[in-house]
């Protein structure tokens, strides 16, 4: 019995010793990790934000310079149509609005009726650059954007032609003489905000 008690005591002592040693090591390990974390966080805080390139700075300078001269005001699309022949029309779409207004990007999307094709797209001076001009699958999509080419940034300007389209029917047949403006994908933006005047902007183009 005595031996049993001695043995239990010895093992208990051994257990406590190991437990203490382990905890000591663990605390040390945690301390070391915490210290390392603090150093990393300090380094991260001190870390400078990514820098910009000269091109970026130039872009920002030009953009901000123009933004100082313009007024944020609603813009919209207007339309004029002219019949050339029995099955051929020209459609002139203008960007309209206050004279000091401007836009940095605009999309115009038209849903074309069957049997009507776009035979020509001529972009106007409203925007300096039109990266997208497509007429496929019964729709037409034109996008104009601001451009920072040359020594200045040019935004989309109102009261100028956005695009001139020539459309014609196939086989002289056109049951529906209306082109619908896609209200979801027709947009005019400035500084990341919509400036499209939905009420004034064209919704349907009637072909005479």
């Amino acid at each position: 019995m005595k031996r049993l008690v001695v043995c239990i005591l010895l093992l208990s002592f051994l257990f406590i010793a190991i437990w203490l040693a382990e905890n000591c090591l663990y605390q040390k390990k945690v301390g070391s990790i915490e210290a390392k974390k603090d150093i990393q966080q300090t380094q991260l805080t001190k870390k400078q934000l990514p820098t910009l390139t000269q091109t970026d700075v130039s872009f920002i300078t030009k953009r901000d310079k123009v933004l100082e001269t313009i007024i944020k005001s609603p813009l919209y699309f207007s339309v004029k149509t002219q019949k050339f022949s029995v099955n051929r029309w020209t459609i002139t779409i203008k960007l309209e609005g206050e004279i000091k207004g401007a836009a940095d990007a605009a999309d115009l999307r038209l849903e074309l009726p069957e049997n009507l094709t776009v035979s020509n797209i001529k972009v106007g001076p409203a925007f300096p650059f039109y990266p997208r001009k497509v007429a496929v699958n019964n729709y037409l999509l034109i996008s104009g954007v601001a451009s920072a080419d040359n020594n200045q940034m040019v935004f989309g300007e109102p009261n100028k032609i956005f695009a001139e389209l020539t459309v014609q029917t196939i086989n002289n047949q056109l049951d529906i003489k209306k082109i619908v403006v896609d209200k979801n994908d027709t947009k005019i933006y400035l500084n990341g905000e919509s400036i499209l005047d939905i009420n004034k902007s064209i919704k349907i183009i009637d072909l005479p």
Partner: protein
Amino acid sequence: MKNNNLRIVFAVISLSIIILISLLISSTNKLVFFNRATDNQLNILIKLQGQYDQIANPTFKTKVVLYGQSGLTREYSNQTLTKDHQNIFKVTINTTGLSFNQMYAIFIKPDKYLGKLFCSPTSSSANCKTPQIIIAAGSNDLDLTQDLLFSGDISPQDGKIAADDISKISNQVGKTSTDYLSTDINSDGRVQTVDYSLAIYSMSKNYIDDPIPSSWNVSITPTSIPTQPQISTTPTPIPSQVGSVTRRVMVIDFNPVIESQGNKKIRDLKGWANPVPLESQYINDVKIASGGYLNYQIVLRKGDLDQYPTKNNGYVFTDEEYLSALNSPTDNARAIINYNKVLNDYEVCQKLNNNEIDELWLWGGPWFGYYEVTMTGPSAFYTNSSPFSGNSCNKNMIVMGFSYERGISEMVENLGHGLEGTLSHFFGENSTTTSGNYTTPWGKFALSEKVAPGKSGCGWMHYAPNSASDYDWSNKRTVSSTCDDWLNYPNLTNVALLIDCNRWNCDGYQYKKWWLAHLPKASGKTNNYWNNWWKYFAELN
């Protein structure tokens, strides 16, 4: 006394358990239980528009959607896409619970990018009509880097690039942050003209999210495709439609006694393998791979011959020379044996002519001078070596050269080479190592990615369909392969599937059996070729 001892033992065990548990708790601060990791996953590589060489660790939250032939199967949101190298990015999804018996199409849409639909590495977007991606149990690698994903669809992502995206980016050029910036397309922590430019480019191309077909073309029976869990060391044979043949084998086993080493036989001295169990395994492997068609039967054995075979220059090893040659082989050691002397010494042709045997297997150690496989007879041809003549054999006979220093994998490889040579002879094309416009079934069967990118068949012994180099049987790259379609021969569907080395457990021996099991073995003939290709090797006369 006995009870006291028991109590002590009990106390010691109890305390030991307590100590162990305490150690576990104290070292990890929590109890650790063994859990079985779920490692069913699909690692997808994609290529993003933009330059990422100089950007440290860009990541993108990514949506991955799996479509089976019946429609949407599973959607994964906010998966982390990380840079692998340059503009190649990797995303891993957990595939546990997916059906591994169907094929998938995968739609991938990283944050700020347009989504792209892949039916296979080589068919995406409008070309993606039929899901062809196989996902097996375990870890799968899928390389979808042949097509670029375009950027510019910033938050809120609507699947297209429009004026609002461009305007927002333009407006934020110059903004920097260590936090997330929705207009920072390349995730380098700053909105720059390059981000603007990337979006403008995508807009100019009128890119949008790939639409998902309302219904998929279904032209494949996925159940015919074995997935990884079905891979075993003994692939399920396809029942032969052509009966079976028995080939009677004579075995000559050279195993010289080395007197200077305590009269030990060389095999025992070197600890090399016993041929008998290898032969049994080989016979079984061939039977399974050929769908029960080819049955070897050893009818005669000349075992443990205390001699070295004579080389074709008349040279015969002494024990010392042989032991020395194992370390530094001489020209004599490198010489091939005099096959005809072996045939004469053991009356092999006589037995062949008397219809007692059909095939000869030679066993030996390194530098004994055997070809892996060769052939003799009146119309012998090049198998894996030039045929030999000058003997009295009046029928064609295959002579296999096996090494007991090697193993079963090399034995199967020898057979594979024999089949390659035989089929190349009969079909008149050898597509194993050279590219070209192969027109025969065998020419197409043996194509690998190495010689015909995008047109892999089953490859050949040294090159699996996806191997990048000789003996590269554990390559995990995914390639499009028609190998499974050869199980339908001669009614090929021309469907290519994506495979990687998981199909053969990324193991050379398994690959060789997998390859053999895919050799056509149907009945009848097509365009004057037997539909059972084993026949060319097994029925030489």
